[in-house]
Every structure is written in structure tokens, then in C-alpha cells.
């Protein structure tokens, strides 16, 4: 049986959501320009991932499975996530305005972030226990943040580089991402 530490570290490093599972590429490319927006997005995603897991897991095993409705997973999960993101947004706006101010822009985007739906579905597919799922979500979120923060540093350097005209913008960013991804390949096999 896998220990919680292995699940956490493998979700963070070896199976990094962005760089080896390709989930959440859109925010990875879109929000990684500045360090503070990258870390803000990372925190918001981690938070929503954990909360979404905490809500969808009981729904799957408590409501859908007993009624033989597992095929509704996708529909229910995405609705829960959308609803949840809205709730978090409203709650933060009322209760913690400073935090809302720093995360607010990113919250609506998280609904369509595949990493969040991905982590909830993966938890079910892998047959994790409730605690395992939460740890997996935490690791996935931290890994997402790590990738975003590292990549924002790379992009800062990239801005000053002399790139051929055709490669400017997105192509150069993608190739830089490829190199960062190679560095994450160094972690593979660490926990197998």
C-alpha cells in the first residue's frame, strides 16, 4: 500500500499535473508571466482542488454509487466544481477581502481548468481512500504551483532573449516549457 508521503511527492514531482500529465496547460501558459500572478493562481488552484475533492468524493461514494449512477460522474463533478468556485468567490469577497483581491481574477478560470476536474476523476479512478484523495489533491495543487512559479522565472529570462521572429511569443514559450519538462523527467522513477 502506498504511504501518504509517496502519494504527495509523486503527485507533486513525478506525475506533475502540468509537465507530465498536461492538465491545466492554459493557465500554465497564460498566467505564468509574472511571479506574483503565478503563485496566486497556484494557491487558488490548490485550494479549489482540495475543496473539490472533499466534496466530490463523498458525492461519488455516498450518492452516485449506491444508486448505480456512476456514469453521471462527469456531469456532477463539473457542476460541483463550478458551483464551488462561485461559492468560494462569494465567501472570499465577504469574509477575506484582501485574499479575494489577490485571487479574485483567477477564480472564475479555475472552473475550466482541467487539472481540477482531472484530480477529482483520477482520485476515483485510482480507488484512493478519502485521505489519500485529499493528499493527492494537495500534491497536485502544489506541483501545479511549483511548475508555474519555476516557469515564470524562465519566462522572465526569455523576455530578454534574442529570439528569431517566427519563434517569438507562444512557440518560444512552448519550447522553454519542453526544457522545464525535461528537467522534471529527472524525478521519474523516484518512487516506483
Amino acid at each position, binding site marked *: 500500500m502506498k504511504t501518504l508521503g509517496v502519494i504527495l511527492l509523486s503527485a507533486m514531482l513525478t506525475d506533475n499535473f502540468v509537465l507530465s*500529465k498536461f492538465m491545466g496547460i492554459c493557465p500554465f501558459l497564460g498566467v505564468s*508571466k509574472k511571479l506574483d500572478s503565478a503563485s496566486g493562481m497556484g494557491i487558488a488552484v490548490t485550494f479549489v482542488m482540495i475543496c473539490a475533492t472533499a466534496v466530490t468524493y463523498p458525492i461519488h461514494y455516498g450518492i452516485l454509487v449506491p444508486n448505480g449512477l456512476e456514469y453521471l460522474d*462527469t*456531469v456532477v463533478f463539473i457542476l460541483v466544481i463550478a458551483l464551488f468556485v462561485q461559492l468560494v468567490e462569494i465567501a472570499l469577497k465577504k469574509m477575506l477581502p484582501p485574499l479575494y483581491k489577490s485571487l479574485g481574477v483567477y477564480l472564475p478560470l479555475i472552473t475550466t481548468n482541467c487539472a481540477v476536474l482531472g484530480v477529482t476523476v483520477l482520485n476515483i479512478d485510482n480507488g484512493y481512500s478519502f485521505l489519500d484523495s485529499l493528499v493527492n489533491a494537495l500534491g497536485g495543487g502544489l506541483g501545479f504551483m511549483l511548475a508555474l512559479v519555476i516557469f515564470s522565472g524562465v519566462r522572465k529570462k526569455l523576455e530578454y532573449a534574442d529570439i528569431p521572429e517566427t*519563434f517569438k511569443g*507562444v*512557440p518560444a514559450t512552448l519550447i522553454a516549457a*519542453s526544457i522545464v519538462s525535461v528537467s522534471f523527467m529527472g524525478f521519474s522513477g523516484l518512487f516506483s
Partner: protein
Amino acid sequence: MAENKTPLIKEISKGIIKENPTLVMLLGMCPTLAVTTQASNGIGMGLATTFVLLGSNIVISALRKIIPDKVRIPAFIVIIASFVTLVGFLLEGFVPPLYESLGIYLTLITVNCIIFGRAEMFASKNNVIASACDAIGMGLGFTLALFIMGSVREIIGSGQWLAGLGQLVGIDDWKPISIPFVSDNPMLLFIMPAGGFFTLGMIIAMVNKLANRKPPQEIECGGCDNCPMSGKCDKKEEKAS
């Protein structure tokens, strides 16, 4: 709201080349990178997405006057997720190998920006027939992009081409085309995640070169009002600050 009067054939063709969702508009990057280790996976994913897009565009366009504006996003999401579930069942029943190899990314079609983007930008403003044509065009454009990505990665990364296509079309004794020289020394890196980023970067650069236009410094922007991505838009922040 003015109905779009463009000829239908244009609605189809624009998605394939001029407004190719992946290579030009840079939407739906996750599946583009994730499933394209084989050309046949690319085709399968592309067609599955096309089906979902067609279904959701038709339904959303037909219901566009009934769905209240305030709840349109949850409504769109439910419609899209239902079609994704449907496609999941169809693939599981008829092409199980493809279902296995697409895995979780099949579920993730739900959050593919292309589908949501087309629903928001096109289907909610145009009639059913135009929306259907738009969906076919965009879907085929996506499939084409995935096929090109998959071909490049498969040929360089495993030295063969179109492995697994037999399962897709139901031919049992299908043999993949072996590429001379590369098949002895495949560059494994290309079917790994890093190769995906690299190939996509190269292909987009090539499209830029061929189209001989200014490279997209920013993701194309049609104003923040109708943009599903307006939340994360850096321009918006810059304007505000």
C-alpha cells in the same frame, strides 16, 4: 442580434485553416499535448471532440433564446458534459482500445476550451445550421492539428506511423507503416511529455512562418465582453493598473 450571413462553406473552412482552433487560436492545448503520442490517438480524440462540439453547438444554438443569460455558463457546462458522457459510452462500447488509450482525457473534453469557447462565441449567437457548420469546421481543424502533431511525434519518437489505426476503423490485421532508419533509432524523447511541448512549439512556429504573419504575442482578443478567458487576461490587468 444580427444573424451571421456568411456562406455555410466558409463557416466550415475557416475552422480548418484560417482560424484553426489549436494552431492559430491556441485553444484546447491540454488534449493536443496529452494524447498525441500516436497519430491514430490524435484522430480518435479529434473525432470525439468534433462529435461533442457538434452536439453541444446544435443544442446550445437551438436553446439560445430559452437559456437565461445569467445561468448560461452552468447550462452550457451541463450540455457539454452530457455529450462527453455519451461519447464515453459510445467509445467504450465500439472502440474499447481507443477508450483505454484516451483514458482520463476523454472525460476532460468537458473542460476543453474549444468547446466552451465556440459555445460562448458562436453557438449562443447564431442559428442552428451555421453553428453546426462551425462545429464541423472547428472539429476538423482540431482533428487535423492533432493528426499532424501525432504523426510527427509518432514518426520521430517510435519510428512507425499510424499504429493503432486498424483498431480505430475495425481492421484486425493492420500493420503500422515502418519508417526506415528512424525505426532503428527512435528518439524516445518525442513521445514523452517534453517532446509534446517541443513539437507543438515547432509546429506553431512553422504555421507562423508559412502564414507569414506577425506571431501571436498574445492570445487573439476580441474584446473582454464576450471572451471566456477575460478573467485571466493580462491585458485587462494592465489596463486596470
